[in-house]
């Protein structure tokens, strides 16, 4: 019997589709590639969350490496992430600023009162103005900002031990050697 290569075409096509799916379905669609990496932090003005503390502003980012964390009192994953942020701020000496996103100052400050405040400064972004400028799609999201207020890296979702030791910590060490 003569083998006709054309008869194998459906099998080959099916295999191709299968392979494409095997790789494609592993991508998490909620994790968008950020277009903001290596761009300067946008200008913004935020309102106060904590009554007796000035709001987080762009000047705070100059001259130091910092993390900027997007959170909200409505955000369940932020509660999960919170102990990690507390540890980074208190024991690893990381400077963290907070953007209280789509929230009210009352709810935001009450939340920080309840779970502890890892942020050097906090600002309220009630109408997503800064969040949209940053390309934020959900909370928590954390930006790594260098000494020149440039965004260098973004973590979508909670920071865990693995992300801290394998990604953030080495990157912060690298950035410290930059001028």
């Amino acid at each position, binding site marked *: 019997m003569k083998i006709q290569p054309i008869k194998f075409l459906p099998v080959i096509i099916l295999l191709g589709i299968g392979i494409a799916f095997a790789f494609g379905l592993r991508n998490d669609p909620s994790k968008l590639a950020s277009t903001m990496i290596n761009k300067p932090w946008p200008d913004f003005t935020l309102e106060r969350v904590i009554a007796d503390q000035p709001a987080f502003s762009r000047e705070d980012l100059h001259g130091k490496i910092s993390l900027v964390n997007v959170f909200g009192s409505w955000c369940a994953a932020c509660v999960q992430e919170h102990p990690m942020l507390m540890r980074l701020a208190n024991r690893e000496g990381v400077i963290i600023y907070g953007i209280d996103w789509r929230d009210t100052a009352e709810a935001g400050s009450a939340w920080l009162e309840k779970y502890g405040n890892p942020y050097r400064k906090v600002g309220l972004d009630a109408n*997503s103005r800064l969040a949209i400028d940053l390309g934020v799609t959900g909370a928590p999201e954390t930006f790594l900002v260098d000494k020149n207020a440039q965004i260098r890296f973004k973590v979508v979702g909670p920071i865990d031990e693995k992300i801290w030791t394998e990604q953030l910590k080495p990157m912060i060490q690298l950035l410290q050697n930059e001028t």
Partner: protein
Amino acid sequence: MKNQLTVILAILLFFGTAGFSFAVKPGEQLSDPKLEQRARTISKGLRCVVCQNQSIDDSDAELAGDMRKLVRERILAGDSDQQVKDFMVERYGNFVLMKPPLAVNTLGLWLSPVLFILIGVGLFWHVSRRKPQTKKPIDTDETEHRLEEVLNKMKKN
């Protein structure tokens, strides 16, 4: 007959409204109907980044609402439709467009339908070109020769 008509009318009305549903709140709308129409058209082309299969015009997500407001603000500030879209693309990437632009990394997406049509046409051509097999007349000499062989084998056994 009259009852049937009522049922059909009810069904049409029910499904007809689906086409008109949108998430724009009355307070969000611009007072100028022309500008509002532009905002609606732009919003329909922008993806809600929370619920990714809806446009921000359809989506009830809070972030989509904030993005709709921002689209209207940009329009009021005098941006063209393209400038508003570029504003969002700058922040969220091409993904934010419901219809991805033709670029190097979307080439496969745009060309694969053409490729599949070509494969289909090729297959059709290949199959239809094939001539119906004409049966060869039986070669009596050969048949007899083979019959003899078989018979000989049987005899040996």
